[in-house]
């Protein structure tokens, strides 16, 4: 048995890595195709505000974090859909407002003794069995949502007006995607950290887009590449004594580079 499988914390880390690596890029496929990939980055900063508020009031911090990230996701999507702000501007406004809010909450609450670095960079090696159950539940929810609403998700990603004239409830689909992204970021942040969770949503999705020949293939490939990147990254981190989140993202980046090179070199 390999050395890294002899430790319980590594087994939990590998399971959480496979779950996060499998679910995050599946949502990423639809975010990237909508040119909305930076929503992950904005929501992860909203999540910092959520963590700060949740820990400050010290009641169900994870639920409070999800409520705040969900509200942020709905606000971004509403601003974008109603044309009040261009998509990238809406992302920037929510990101900076949340970050400022998080800084102020952390500063204002006396005795706030939490290692914010763990939320910024993640701590995959301290994942608890409770975290694993939550991640497994979310992965199941994402799997069911994406397979059941695949037609709606694919059509709204391709062209919203075209989807609307086909009878797809575009507004509800977009709100659903935003809320799923919020849930994924809330739980994945524990594993990957606020600063890196967006990378695992976007990079395997982009690599899958380069490799796969179809929409279905892209979704399956994104999940597979994300999960494999997580496992490979964790094993490298174990032997090279590197932080797990950073190693996972660097592997995902290498996979993306290889996929882009393959797409460029492939015969047409």
């Amino acid at each position, binding site marked *: 048995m390999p050395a890294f499988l002899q430790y319980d914390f590594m087994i939990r880390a590998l399971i959480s890595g496979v779950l996060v690596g499998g679910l995050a890029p599946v949502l990423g496929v639809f975010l990237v*195709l909508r*040119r909305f990939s930076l929503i992950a980055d904005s929501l992860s900063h909203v999540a910092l505000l959520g963590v700060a508020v949740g820990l400050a009031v010290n009641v169900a911090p994870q639920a409070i974090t999800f409520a705040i990230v969900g509200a942020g996701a709905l606000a971004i999507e509403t601003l974008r859909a109603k044309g009040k702000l261009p998509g990238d501007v809406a992302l920037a406004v929510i990101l900076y407002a949340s970050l400022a809010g998080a800084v102020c909450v952390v500063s204002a609450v006396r005795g706030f003794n939490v290692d914010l670095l763990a939320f910024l960079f993640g701590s995959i090696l301290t994942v608890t069995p409770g975290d694993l159950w939550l991640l497994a539940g979310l992965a199941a929810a994402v799997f069911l949502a*994406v*397979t*059941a*609403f*695949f*037609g*709606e998700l*694919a*059509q709204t*990603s*391709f*062209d*919203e*007006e*075209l989807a*609307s*004239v*086909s*009878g*797809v409830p575009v507004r509800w689909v977009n709100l659903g995607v935003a809320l799923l992204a919020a849930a994924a970021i809330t739980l994945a942040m524990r594993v990957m950290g606020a600063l890196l969770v967006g990378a695992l949503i976007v990079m395997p999705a982009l690599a*899958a*887009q*380069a490799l*796969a*020949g*179809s*929409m*279905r*293939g*892209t*979704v399956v490939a994104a999940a597979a590449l994300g999960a494999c990147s997580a496992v490979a990254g964790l094993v490298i981190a174990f032997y090279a004594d590197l932080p797990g989140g950073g190693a996972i993202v660097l592997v995902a980046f290498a996979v993306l580079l290889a996929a882009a090179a393959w797409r460029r070199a492939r015969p*047409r």
Partner: protein
Amino acid sequence: MQKHQGWTTDAPAEIAPPERGMSAAPFAVEMDGVSFAYGGDTVVEDVTLRIERCDFAVILGPNGSGKSTLLKLALGLLKPRSGSVRLFGVDPARFKDWRRVGYVPQVANGAQAAFPATVGEIVAHGRYAGFSPLAFWRGEKGPDVDRALEAAGVSHLRGRRIGDLSAGQQQRALIARALVRSPDLLVLDEPIAGLDAHGEEQVYAVLRDMNAQGITTLMVSHDIGAVMREAKTVACVNCSLAFHGPPHDLTRAELARLYGFPVDALLHDAFHEHR
């Protein structure tokens, strides 16, 4: 073998189911006193227009004249500032039977990038008829998809990614996506923009076929010559409606008024003789 000018198909592809097209409303699209503005900029002013069933109607006008806006108003993608729009007799905001409408935008957002869907998948999207929990597993196969691909002349492109195709091929793939719905009304926004003469003829050949099968066609176009040749009725728009009727009733003077300068178009009389 069915033969069109410059393009052949090996077998005629029947698309339109006549039964669904026989509801009570006599017009596919009705607009009464419709106005619309983007902010303070009025682009459609008091337009009253009716598109009859089985018509091949073309909306003609200079750039920025509100042609595409009219299409979006007809489809409920925009709400009029004043006036009313009806799609098969129903306000588009309350219209439910979207299977009756096939829409071909000038450019689909996803077709511009390296969108990973194949032509087959894009065409299969057109079958959408509401939530289907097995959509992911259902795939793109089906005789309806086969027929639509064949009718649009893109069967050979079925497995290609939409983003890898030329503009003309993408346009015909989008037409196939619209046709797979077996629509009663086909709405197209400048389907020949950016196409060469061969690509244009391929698209017109498909539209001619579909209209002959009873599909009402409403199209925006810049191409005056093709409009004169293909359309049954023409609506000339420059913010307001300047002319609506058969193309052979359209005079050079009216065209010149529409565009603001003399337009040398090849006009036809009622018997399609040049005049």
